[in-house]
């Protein structure tokens, strides 16, 4: 993907972006209630526990919903259609991301299809994007 908005980490989100820069998808997990959660915060939104940890997750996900954006915002250099997707990680949390490695056509995108994370550079950061496991 061409240049676009660049995320700026905060102290609470920095480990997520540090992981992305190292090619790892890192998500927080609550030690007390054992649930993974997103987006980053130093306590569990489900049980309010402070006992949370960062975990490298599998990077496997399924496609939950998507749009094909034919009118990319002016922040993007390229005017090519974008596949903007909501994907659900094997560990539970849902992320907004891009699907890459396929032509942006509905026929290529089946809800529930298996995906694997990949990382693409964006400014001084790396974005977690997802590729279909089978095309």
């Amino acid at each position, binding site marked *: 993907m061409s240049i*676009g*908005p*660049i*995320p*700026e*980490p*905060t102290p609470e*989100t920095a480990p997520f*972006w540090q992981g992305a820069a190292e090619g790892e998808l890192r998500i927080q997990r609550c030690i007390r209630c054992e649930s993974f959660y*997103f*987006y980053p915060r130093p306590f569990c939104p489900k049980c309010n526990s402070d006992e949370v940890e960062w975990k490298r997750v599998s990077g496997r996900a399924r496609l*939950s*919903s*998507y*749009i*094909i*954006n*034919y*009118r*990319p*915002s002016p*922040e*993007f250099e390229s005017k090519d259609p*974008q596949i*903007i*997707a*909501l994907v659900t990680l094997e560990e539970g949390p*849902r*992320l*907004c*991301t*891009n699907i890459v490695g396929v032509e942006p056509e*509905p026929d290529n995108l089946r*809800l529930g299809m298996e995906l694997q994370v990949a990382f693409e550079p*964006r400014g001084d*950061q790396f*974005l977690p*994007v997802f590729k279909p496991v089978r095309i």
Partner: protein
Amino acid sequence: MPLISPNGGNIAIVGASETERVGVVPDMSMIQLHADAARRALKDAGLTPADVDGIATAETQVIEVAAMLGIRPRWMDGTTIGGCSFMAHVRHAAAAIATGQASVVLITHGESGRSWVGMPNYSMNPRGPDGQFEQPFGAIAPYSLFTLPALAFLEARGMGQRDLAEVVVAQREWAIPNERAQRRTPVTVDEVLTGPRVAYPFTRDMCCVVTDGGGALVLVSAERARDLPSANRAVYLMGSGESCESVLVSQMDDLTSFGSFRRASAEAFETAGVTHDDIDHAMFYDAFAHLPLYMLEDTGFVGFGESGAFHAEGHTRPGGRLPINTNGGGMSYTHSGMYGMYAIQEAVRQLRGEAVVQVPDMKLSFVQGVGGLFWSAASLILSNQAP
């Protein structure tokens, strides 16, 4: 002053008006759209700015609106939860009047959404949750964010893109005779489906228009309403509710059903003490075509998966058993960015018997708002029957 319930018809909307013009109004700034609507609504109520002791608005500083009109309030509400803020203001104003914190509340909206005159600069925050976890992926404009869960909703029900188009076609019927509406050309499902692509599965007419405009409401106690020249046109708040979920679409609890619609509407029905069968008319905030589908099901008017057929079979159209979005909605009438005010205005017009396309025998209207991109929701049940 004795405490009364804010619901059950104890609080009345006695003034209601949109700006003189809606659509393309390049000669008026945002704040003047607020002021134009406010002065018209006060005149409608038979009141003046000097009578107002409570004021509410969203996005714009409530102080700026008060100062513009020369109001020195004792109650203020700047609740900004997206386009349904004004439904929340009605609910909050009712509570303020019921507890004696205010006696005459003015709620205003003004937005130069199309001409962008006197509006703040649009800016993104790359450090916010959206700036980090949505915008880098292109999920920036409402059409690329609000639309994201739609395929999950449709597929869970065996529905599809045609169901989105049916909503557009049904609502357009209301807009055709309405000279204030932006889109008035009759359309077919196939024409909607083959229209300009915006964000699959959404084509142009499945997305709201972008306009300039405003609206305002004046609320007092039902007791005080009886003494106003607008008494016989008063509209009473029967019930209300509000809720929120997340600022990130990806973090909805369920992509196929919005919890805030369920929670807000359930409280509105509970506080009003009425059932769905009692409702004559509904306004479902429709920035995009999937929203009336979610709302019909999440607020309990139809069962799971029935919202598409309900539109296709004509039940929401003129003469249907539940007329919906009778001004044409955000997709055909007007949408300055925060549509909620216009939804309330149309409900009030219908209950007063003053709508362009009037629903006969109106007694109860249900108004469902949504805020942001599945961020929040607020619901109102309004009546024209004095308590």
